[in-house]
């Protein structure tokens, strides 16, 4: 299958390894992976801030960039939710509405693509560590992804998955919210980070690089041990 990568701007600039890991997993499964360098950002920062005109121009551009793609796969529940859930709302009633719905129908978050579209749960990875999974809110509630990442993790050799008691709680990132209301954002990190840390797992697995930024940032500041890792990086590892 021909798969087009959707690399969120944050991954492009700050965590490029996540993009490479996604590529590695998909190629290992025998698919052809492409990256269209014309892509930039999904426009979520403007959309969430209320600047819909600006977000709309970014969205229309993304429709052009991914024109003709068979499947678009991105390693972020949040950015995929922007394309799948919010582009059709943003472009409703415009000449671009149909194209937005078309892109929405073929854009997938990495873990759901593997499980729901490719029907794969065992990608042949090995990760000899205890992990807990952090649900990103956009993946969980906008895209309704909850089981896919867990199914993938359970199939990883030598991996122990332990659930935390605040699995469905937000980490407090929320984009610009994290710097406009830093005290609330940090209080939320305390709650979620505390719950994740109580599992005493070596790694916190996430499908959202910006949740990782928030949690790692807080753990590091607090000199706490656990670190996050992207699901794609767990799945890319191993001796398969």
């Amino acid at each position: 299958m021909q798969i087009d990568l959707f690399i969120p701007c944050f991954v492009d600039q700050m965590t490029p390894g996540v993009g490479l890991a996604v590529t590695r997993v998909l190629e290992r499964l025998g698919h052809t992976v492409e990256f269209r360098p014309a892509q930039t950002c999904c426009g979520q920062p403007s959309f969430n801030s209320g600047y819909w005109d600006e977000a709309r121009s970014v969205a229309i551009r993304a429709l052009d960039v991914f024109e003709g793609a068979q499947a678009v796969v991105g390693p972020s529940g949040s950015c995929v939710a922007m394309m799948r859930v919010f582009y059709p709302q943003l472009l409703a009633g415009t000449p671009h509405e149909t194209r937005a719905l078309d892109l929405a129908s073929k854009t997938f978050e990495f873990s759901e693509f593997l499980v729901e579209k490719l029907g794969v749960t065992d990608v042949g990875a090995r990760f000899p560590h205890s992990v807990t999974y952090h649900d990103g809110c956009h993946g969980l509630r906008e895209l309704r992804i909850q089981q896919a990442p867990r199914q993938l993790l359970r199939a990883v050799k030598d991996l122990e998955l332990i659930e935390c008691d605040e699995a469905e709680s937000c980490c407090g990132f929320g984009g610009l919210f994290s710097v406009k209301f830093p005290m609330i954002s940090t209080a939320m990190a305390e709650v979620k980070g505390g719950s994740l840390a109580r599992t005493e797992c070596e790694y916190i697995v996430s499908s959202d690089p910006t949740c990782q930024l928030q949690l790692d940032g807080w753990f590091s500041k607090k000199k706490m041990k656990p670190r996050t890792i992207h699901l794609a990086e767990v799945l890319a590892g191993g001796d398969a």
Partner: protein
Amino acid sequence: MSVHDATTKAALPAEAKNQFLHDAAEHVRDIDHRSFVRKALGGYYVTRDSQKAKYRDWEHARDAAALAKWSAVNRLDELLPLFVTNFEAGGGIVHFARDAQEARTIIVDLVRASNAKAIIKSKCMTTEEIHLNDALEKEGYVVVESDLGEFIQQLRGEPPYHFVFPCMHVRRGEISDLFQKHLGTEPTQSPEELTMIARRYMRQLYVDADVGITGANFLVAETGQISITENEGNARLTAALPRVHIALSGIEKVVASLADLAVLLPMLATAGTGQPMTCYNTLYSGPQKNDEPDGPREMHLVLLDNARTAILADPEQRDSLHCIRCGACLNVCPIFKNVGGFTYGTTYQGPIGSVITPHLRGLSDWNHLSSASSLCGACTDACPVRIDIHHHLLHNRRNAVRASPKRLEHIGHQLFAFVAARPWLFAAGGKLFRWSLGFLKKIRPPLLRQWLETRDLPPAPPKSFRQLWKERS
């Protein structure tokens, strides 16, 4: 006994926002308070989930409840007059109030006309919305809240902390001290004894009161009845014993038929408090009839608009009129749990409050509540009538920008869109950002500073994904 009116403290534009930021910062430092509230809600999650599990299909029940409210709200022009006709056929008198001021005037006039001395009240957030107690006290009337939680808040001189659990932030010992101070009772740690103290104090007040004021949970159009949900029996006494019963309700509380209550009453209880049904659900059909031994001699219903028709005119946010004030969205909201109820400075706290307060009091002064959200969506999932709560926060943000964009912020987003449209510029900008990040962390410009105060930032990688991809192929 005067209720301190924290809900009107924001008088000037920007003052509400600054107060919010100040109070939020102060509240998040109070770790004891935050964990106390979390612990209280922990018990609620357990009972709520065990009740939800008794539904054959909770999600289907949500559909049914949402449909009942949706069809009623969308037929309000037909159902409201029908309700009024049927209610008045039962001998009650309806008064229409366009806004809070009109509602206060109507109620104060009714109280005055009844030559009342003492007034007893049961729990009603709509009376909080119009600041009724203040208005009555200004006229020299003594108003006593008969709901235990509201009574405690009245003694404390505070507004409700949570619109369903008004005193959820108060510890048992504090209630004991409060009763000792105001009612002269012996200290006790027993919840039952504390309840009995309030109950003994209240009994005579019901008998002495000339006017009883209640709210309404639902207005049943086909029968003209008012449905009131409660757990203490205080609303029944408030409605039944005094000579005059005055109920205040928003016009959006209308439902078509009694059958709608079959789904709405249990869902209100389960979502709100984790109960299968609240202890008392009563339908009121009017004042005492000739052949009836008791009941109020007069029954008035004040129907309040106060921005509800404006929300009705907005198809995007019309579903916020579905709200049955169960409080489920507050109970799951990480913002509410971390900043507490008072920080909002509103009558209705939490996510639904952040959606509707801008409609009640103006978007420019209250949009900050819509911004103070990570948009996690827990509220929308919890809502028994499927209000699209967290997306309405996005709609409020957009509407606020449309009404008055902030110049600097607007330029920032225009610049962002300009760069995002040009991959070469985007790549160059990214490179510049990565290259200068170490330096930026030292000089800590605004926004980055807010991040760095409580969180670290990893070093930027030497190469972007697009560079690595190019090298790869």
